[in-house]
Structures are given as structure tokens and as C-alpha cells.
């Protein structure tokens, strides 16, 4: 990643990695289903797999479809109009023109931490939100970079990508939960047609235990790639990596975090509101902010592009 600094290359590299990770997710789901089949035999598992996928689908896709309204309630954001913040609207309109996207809804979150996020099932239902603090601490160029980053999430359909990731991770979690319960409670009875090779049984068991962790790791990796992609796309809109870089530096130097109502929406903010030090890098939804700043600095050194 460090050797490609052009935003077009970065965009396609990050897209490619996302496809690879999503494919890995599919493979993992299949692997869990196969392990279940090996361990318990065809009888029980043939209806549990569709049930697990179904539960995950209903749960995640409901929130995906209503994401703009749901996130408003979960973060306490208030939708505003042009009269409330004409300068912010001017800046958003600039990025809208640069990206060719429709004008999103705009919301404000009363909070003392500088942060921002984007959501919505498609560009026509997009919502971008800013905390009151970010509007106070950032200058025009920095805020423009932040807006471009959020509009990039809209353009790259990241609500959809994370919904797909969350669905598979959810299905895998439900599936292995079912399996573990079945193993403890209805042990010996259902095992007539199961595979009798002991190595296969141990491997299947290991898959069922490890799969949910692997799924969460993949989900976080996808989220990190989408953040890098949004940084690169933002530069393709503003052609000004310095603006976003300075904005990230402001975010990095600020230690206050958003007083969230729920951890479930942690991944949507531009800077992760979770404490970075306590979680391993593998589980975090955002790439380290220093790494993002370094990538943008490398783009600046290329000079003006068009």
C-alpha cells in the first residue's frame, strides 16, 4: 500500500481488497455450514443453515433499509436546513458538485468531541452528520476534506458493504451458537449419519469455535479497507490531500470521544469513538489514524493532480 500513492491506484487497490474480503466471508460461511454438516449429519443442519442466514438477513437488512432514520435515533442527530448553517451547506454543495452525487440530508449531533459520519441505503437517501464540536474546531479546507470523506462513503455504498459484512458475520455467529448448543444438549441421538472420521470431527469442531472470531476479524478488515478507500475517493473529489490530512491531525490530537448511545454504530464515524489502545489493531474498524495521515502526506508530495 505504501508504494502506490496515486489516489486512483489507491481506490482500485482498496476496492479489490474489499471484494477479496467479502469473498472470504462467503467462503467462511460455506466452511461453517460444511463443518456443521460433517459433525451433525445432514438431518438437523439442512434446516438450521437457512434459519441462521434468515435471522441475520432480517436483522441486518431492516437496519440497512432504514439506516438513515435508525442512525438518527441511535446518535441523537438533528436534521438541519440551509438556514441553520449556511457555510456548512456551501461547503457540502461544493463537494456535491465535485462528486456529481445528489445533495444529502445534513444533521448535527450535539457533542463535545469532533467527529462526523455518513449513512443511508443509497445516494438518494444519504445522510451526513457532524458533531457541533467539529464545526467549531475545523477551518474551511479541513471541513471540506471531512465532507469529501463522508460523501465518498455515500458514493462507495459503504452502508451496503457493511450490511453485507454484518449479515454474514451475524449468520456465522448464530450458526455456530446453534451448533454448540446442539452439541451440549442433544449429543448422542442425532449422530447416526454423521461422519465417523475422528480427525474430521475435531477439525469441524475447531471451525465452529473459531469461525465467529474469524468473521469479526474479516468484518473489521472490510471496514478498515472502506475507510482507506473513502480517504482516497475524498482526494479524488477535492484534489487537496492536505485538507483531509490536517483534519485527521485535528482529530488525532483531540482526546475527547463521542458520548455514544450505542456501540453498534461505532464503525460509521470518521474517527473511531472506541478507545484504540484497549482493542487490538485486528479488531478495530478504522486503520490507525497515523497511517491514514502518512498515506495522505505521500499523496501531497505528488503535487497537484487533475
Amino acid at each position, binding site marked *: 500500500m505504501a508504494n502506490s500513492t496515486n489516489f486512483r491506484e489507491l481506490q482500485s487497490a482498496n476496492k479489490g481488497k474489499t471484494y477479496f474480503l467479502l469473498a472470504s466471508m462467503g467462503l467462511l460461511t460455506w466452511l461453517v455450514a460444511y463443518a456443521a454438516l460433517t459433525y451433525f449429519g445432514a438431518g438437523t443442519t439442512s434446516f438450521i443453515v437457512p434459519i441462521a442466514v434468515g435471522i441475520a438477513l432480517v436483522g441486518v437488512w431492516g437496519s440497512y433499509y432504514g439506516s438513515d432514520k435508525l442512525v438518527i435515533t441511535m446518535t441523537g442527530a438533528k436534521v438541519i436546513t440551509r438556514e441553520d448553517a449556511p457555510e456548512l451547506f*456551501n461547503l457540502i*454543495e*461544493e463537494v456535491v*458538485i*465535485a462528486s*456529481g452525487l445528489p445533495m444529502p440530508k445534513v444533521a448535527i449531533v450535539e457533542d463535545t468531541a469532533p467527529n462526523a459520519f455518513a449513512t443511508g441505503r443509497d445516494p438518494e437517501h444519504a445522510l451526513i452528520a457532524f458533531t457541533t464540536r467539529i464545526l467549531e474546531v475545523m477551518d474551511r479546507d479541513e471541513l471540506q476534506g471531512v465532507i469529501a470523506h463522508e460523501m465518498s462513503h455515500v458514493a462507495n455504498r459503504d452502508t451496503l458493504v457493511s450490511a453485507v459484512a454484518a449479515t454474514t458475520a451475524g449468520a456465522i455467529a448464530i450458526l455456530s451458537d446453534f451448533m454448540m448448543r446442539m452439541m451440549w444438549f442433544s449429543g448422542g441421538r442425532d449422530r447416526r449419519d454423521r461422519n465417523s472420521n475422528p480427525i474430521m470431527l475435531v477439525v469441524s469442531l475447531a471451525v465452529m469455535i473459531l469461525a465467529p472470531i474469524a468473521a469479526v476479524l474479516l468484518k473489521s478488515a472490510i471496514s478498515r479497507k472502506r475507510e482507506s478507500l473513502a480517504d482516497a475517493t475524498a482526494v479524488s*473529489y477535492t484534489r487537496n490531500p492536505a485538507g483531509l490530512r490536517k483534519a485527521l491531525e485535528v482529530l488525532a490530537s483531540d482526546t475527547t470521544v463521542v458520548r455514544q448511545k450505542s456501540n453498534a454504530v461505532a464503525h460509521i464515524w470518521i474517527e473511531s469513538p472506541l478507545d484504540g489502545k484497549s482493542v487490538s489493531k485486528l479488531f478495530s474498524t478504522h486503520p490507525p489514524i497515523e497511517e491514514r495521515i502518512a498515506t495522505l502526506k505521500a499523496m501531497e508530495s505528488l503535487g497537484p493532480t487533475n
Partner: protein
Amino acid sequence: MEIILILGAIALLVLFVVAQYNRLVRLNITVDEAFAQIEVQLKRRADLIPNLVETVKGYAAHEQSTFDAVVTARAKSTSASTVGEVAAADGALTNALRGLLAVAEAYPDLKASTNFLSLQEELSTTENKVSFARQFYNDNVRSLNQAVATIPTSFFAGLAKVSARAFYEVENPADRNVPNVKF
């Protein structure tokens, strides 16, 4: 059996042609829209100018030559129509406005007036919008020209009546000033 295969092949071919044709037409329409967006923003900027000139005049009445330059450039920009003309007039007006704002720098009372501050915000956002509209237009012209010049879309450019379009290039006199090297 053979009939089905032949019909299938024809259907695929038709779908392919339709897809290429539609892609070209879509790109062409996007370029039109992008150019319309530039004109909308240029119009907005032209509408801001009389107000701005009046405000500055209130504090700096004797800077007549600067005002004249802005007014002439504005008049030219409203009569331009082709991409080249619009771009040239746009560049000239941008420079004239820079001159006007440079004049304003010398008058602290003017710089502090709320009317001027709000006009300045309007003007700078409009300048940004003009340049982003330009960038969006040029990006789309780039995709269109690439499609017109590369296989397979190039085969259907004539059929779709789509041809390469002109880039929007602003002449910036400052960039033209190549240093004179004397020996």
C-alpha cells in the same frame, strides 16, 4: 438445436451493441449536464458581482480601474457560449475578481463590514463550486473521450452520434509567464 444457438448468439450480440451504445450516450449526457452545472455556477458568480462592486465602492471609490476591469470581464462572460469562450471569459473574470479582493485588503473598514464578509463567503464558495464543476466536467470529458477512442466503444461512436468533446481549460495568464532566460 442449431437454430437456438444461432438465435442465442444474435441475442447476445444485440445486447452487446445496445450496452455499448447506451454507455456512449450516457457519457455524452453526463458531459452536457456537467457543462450546464459550470454555467449555473458562473451565472451565480456573475449575479454576485454588482453587489460586491457596490459594497467595495462604498469604501474605496477611487479604485475606478479595478471596478471597470471587473465589469468588462463580467459583461464578456455573460455573452460567451462555446466551451472555449466560456472558459476564457471565466479565467479573465476570476483574475479581475482577484484584483478587486486585493484592493479590498487595503481597507480595514471594508474588510470588517458584515456585508462584505458575507459577500466574500458567497464569492469564495461560488469560486470553489465553479472549479469543482470544471473538474467534474473535465473528468467526464476524459471518460467520454477515452470511450470514443478505445475498442470496443469506438466502433459505435458514429452510430450513437457521439464524438470527443473539448476540455474546459481556463487560461491563467499567471501560469503563462515563463521566466525569460537571458545569457
